[in-house]
């Protein structure tokens, strides 16, 4: 296998959607309607992901993230363009592709609801034909990363959301896939569970060199896990680079806060590529006495928000 876990070249996906009409009359008319419109969910996206990378795949709701993931997993066929996962076309070799990928959808579980977790693990072991020795090694690795003893014999339906998500992530890595897709894995979890899940993902990625494609709306996940992020909006890729570059993407902004003599805070957003912070402080000092200074980096969340709102494009 080559060095790329995933390659996408000029991938597009169009959907045909029936134009629905309003009201009862409209609904009846829709029964016989041939009035379709084409919606482009993904437009000309190219992307290369190397082995062992963790990619943050971001975008506002409805940007085309899920559609892309479905194409990568082989569930959907692209309208045009080429996708290679582990060097193979996913929708043509669906079963084979499935043996080499793992998936977690934060809002659904692939585990067997009424059975204890360990039974789901055994079933997945047999479904993916994992040799017993490798299976045991994997369980040992899990033990070293998280405390799985309390959940191993617990039926899945009795688990808390956090325990269930944790279990689902473990289940997705069980057959040691080359790529794991995590779709909003930390949705609805508390702070400490989020932290646990992040360190688990990081640990598994490090130990097994698994490529991870992570979609999330939680910038904490991105900050903790991803070095590189890809942002799509309206089906188009608008950013693909390191997380550090992101902050300089539309000027290197920092927030300067000054406490003045009358104990009020003055706040200003400064673009360092245009204005020198020291100069600002000096000018201010000439007017009023400064008692305290705070300098804040702009957070990933704020940058992403600006990008989603279209300020950067």
């Amino acid at each position: 296998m080559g060095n790329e876990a995933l390659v996408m070249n000029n991938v597009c996906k169009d959907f045909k959607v029936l134009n629905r009409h309003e009201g009862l009359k409209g609904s009846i008319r829709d029964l016989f309607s041939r009035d379709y419109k084409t919606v482009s969910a993904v437009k000309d996206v190219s992307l290369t992901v190397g082995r062992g990378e963790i990619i943050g795949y971001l975008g506002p709701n409805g940007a085309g993230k899920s559609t892309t993931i479905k194409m990568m997993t082989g569930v959907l066929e692209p309208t045009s363009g080429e996708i290679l996962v582990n060097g193979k076309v996913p929708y043509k070799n669906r079963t084979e592709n499935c043996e080499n990928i793992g998936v977690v959808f934060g809002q659904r579980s692939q585990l067997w609801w009424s059975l204890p977790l360990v039974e789901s693990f055994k079933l997945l072991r047999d479904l993916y034909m994992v040799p017993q020795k490798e299976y045991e090694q994997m369980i040992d690795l899990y033990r070293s990363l998280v405390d799985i003893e309390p959940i191993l014999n617990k039926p899945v339906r009795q688990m808390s959301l956090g325990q269930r998500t944790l279990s689902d992530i473990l289940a997705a890595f069980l057959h040691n896939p080359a790529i794991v897709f995590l779709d909003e894995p930390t949705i609805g979890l508390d702070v400490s569970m989020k932290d646990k899940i992040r360190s688990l993902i990081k640990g598994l990625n490090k130990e097994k060199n698994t490529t991870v494609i992570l979609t999330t709306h939680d910038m904490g996940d991105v900050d903790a896990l991803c070095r590189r992020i890809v942002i799509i909006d309206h089906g188009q890729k608008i950013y693909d680079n390191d997380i550090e570059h992101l902050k300089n993407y539309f000027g290197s902004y920092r927030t300067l806060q000054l406490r003045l003599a009358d104990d009020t805070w003055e706040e200003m957003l400064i673009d360092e590529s245009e204005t020198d912070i020291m100069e600002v402080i000096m000018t201010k000092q000439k007017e009023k006495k400064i008692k305290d200074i705070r300098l804040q980096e702009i957070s990933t969340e704020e940058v992403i928000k600006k990008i989603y709102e279209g300020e950067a494009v």
Partner: protein
Amino acid sequence: MNPRKLLALTRAGIMESLHYRLGTAVTLFANLIYLVLVYFLWKAIYASSGVDTVNGMTFTDTMIYLILATSLFNFLEMFVVWDMSRSIQSGKIILDLLKPMKFRTYTFWSYSGSHVVLFVLTFIPTFIVVMIVTNGAIQLGLNLLWFVLATVFALIINFNIEMLVATLCLYTESTWGINIVKETIVLLLSGASIPLAFFPDWLRTVVDYLPFRAVYDIPLTILLQKNGTDTWQGLLPMFGLQIIWIAVLSVAGILFWNHSVRKITVNGG
């Protein structure tokens, strides 16, 4: 296909259905009520006809047939259509599509475990009770073996019918109506609610060649050794009909599914 994968699914299915033992008990109870109703209905039919034998079947014959048909129905009943429509609406189907085997194979073997449990917990007890009550009206011999084989074929045919209807539901995005129509057709034309011997001749001729009969009527005919099924000449056409329908329905089902699955858009996410 590796048997390890398939049997793992059967095993999990058995464990899951044993988990819902109260559900099984309720099914048995509902059955009992239904059978009481059937008993009095047919008793009235025979009483009003004024003769002992109607269409070549005595009252006892009819009762044995219907009781076994009902328990066979409970054992063979599948919920592929319901389950699939639910998992399409919730978007869970994507997780099943991403299992490392063909969706059909995965679905069939996922259900297999619960059929094993139902066979042991509902069909076998009913059969034993009928045997004791009728005091040897059913002969035991090689016919039991042929019956089990015919039942496995029946299960596969039933699964194929379910899958075809479930695939159809991918397009309609609504299931209820279609499924009711399917259930009514299957129940009537398979001989599960009225013995086929009671059908008018022209309908009987048509029904004899349809797949529905192969689900309930053929296994029961073999078990009760009717229509010469105690000989090879009688057995072979029965199995032949089942195998032909398995082949036809499987090919149609696979083609229809492969064509449809490329078009589906999984909801949500």
